[in-house]
């Protein structure tokens, strides 16, 4: 088995300088290893730090303690200390992230939003549009919407655009924060099959799935986030 992700002794707390310097500890001494083809579901009650952990792996949040090692280009990159230039390269080619919310530039058509990750890894424009279209079709986003900006779409449609964007490039590591949250049963099944396919081709998946059926379908391990590290006092 190939290890794709290693968290070593990771700790996190937030210091709120504007609110009297209040310190909010999240966790400390957290260790986690994820292999290729695995899907690790982070479990635990809300507020325990599941989304925080996912964001730290993506380097969207800083990692003040420990190391977050990512298998990138045959070497280890520590997301906690790597130069931003390197982190951007990891995000472009190795690590995809599907958040709960779609954040897009106004006026950019849906098809371009989905094709962008492919363009970023150097695929030519025509092929990227074809593949983006295939992914949108698979996720039941009707073709008449492709030329429109997703800003005005419904919650479920936006989430499917978000998922299309996250799955259009076969990232070796996928971070999923509630990918099925606002979807109906049919679309949920499609997303679950996308996750299973990603696992089959060897991607390492770390996700938060509040939906039990979703978790039982795709996860190879369910981890209690509170037990991964010591709960910071």
């Amino acid at each position, binding site marked *: 088995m190939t290890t794709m992700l290693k968290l070593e002794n990771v700790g996190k707390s937030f210091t709120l300088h*504007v609110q009297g310097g209040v310190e909010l500890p999240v966790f400390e001494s957290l260790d986690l290893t994820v292999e290729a083809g695995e899907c690790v579901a982070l479990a635990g009650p809300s507020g325990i730090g599941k989304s925080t952990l996912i964001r730290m792996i993506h380097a*969207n949040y800083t990692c003040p303690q420990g190391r977050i090692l990512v298998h990138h280009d045959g070497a280890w990159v520590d997301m906690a200390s790597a130069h931003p*230039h390197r982190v951007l390269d990891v995000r472009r080619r190795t690590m995809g992230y599907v958040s709960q919310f779609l954040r897009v530039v106004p006026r950019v058509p849906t098809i371009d939003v989905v094709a962008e990750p492919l363009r970023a890894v150097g695929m030519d424009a025509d092929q990227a549009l074809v593949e983006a279209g295939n992914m949108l079709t698979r996720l039941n986003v009707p073709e008449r919407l492709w030329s429109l900006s997703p800003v005005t779409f419904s919650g479920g449609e936006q989430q499917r655009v978000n998922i299309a964007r996250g799955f259009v490039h076969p990232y070796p590591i996928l971070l999923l924060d509630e990918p099925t949250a606002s979807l109906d049963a049919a679309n949920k099944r499609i997303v679950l099959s996308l996750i299973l396919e990603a696992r089959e081709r060897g991607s390492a998946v770390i996700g938060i799935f509040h939906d039990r059926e979703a978790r039982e379908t795709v996860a190879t391990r369910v981890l209690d986030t509170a037990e991964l590290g010591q709960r910071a006092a």
Partner: protein
Amino acid sequence: MLGSEQPILSVDNVSHDYGRQRGCAGVSFDLYPGEVMGVVGESGSGKTTLLNVLAGHLTPSTGSVRYRGRSGGEVDIHRMGEPERRLLMRTDWAFVHQNPRDGLRMNVSAGANVGERLMAIGRRHYGNIRGQAVEWLERVEVEHGRIDDLPVTFSGGMQQRLQIARNLVTGPRLVFMDEPTGGLDVSVQARLLDLIRGLVTDLGLSAVIVTHDLAVVRLLAHRLMVMKDGYVVENGLTDQVLDDPQHPYSQLLVSSILQT
């Protein structure tokens, strides 16, 4: 383009003082091809001073700014001869001013504003120059029929788009922008942001963008520096600095944004 390992711009410990008044102090960073660096901070934080030092308009009191040219060799932009620097500014670099009046010639037509930059780099064929000017005006969404009009007859947003066309027509590699969306209506801003973002991506430009608008850097910049009193107090990935700011001043900036 993105992902290449040699920086296009290397800024090492740059400071600039106005007499006893501090402009910017001890700024260092590397900018890579295809990357956009945002610089935020309030008025007087030193961000425009820094931009002017980077673009060669001001000489730093200490430190150096090195640029890697198309051939791969590095030059210190404050130590090179004036003619070489002027050539570089016409060919490889572009500077988009906050006020389009500072970057445009207001008494010549829109087409001439774009075309004269091509002539400045030695193009002489009138038909080609006009053709390229038309193409660029279309690209920045200035209607075709306005090519012979003076910029004074344009709205603020159109003037800013014209300034961008004038700057990008020569195919620069590095673009400096000072509050490019400042003073424009929100709807006009969105259109301009979308345009700049598309151009930066399509042309693989590197850019340094100074603004006080965090929404602008969220959309345009890969990386972000927060300046206060002349110093960079925080610097990192844009989304990291905005979503998990560490320095008290960055936290204050982010928490001061009005939610809509």
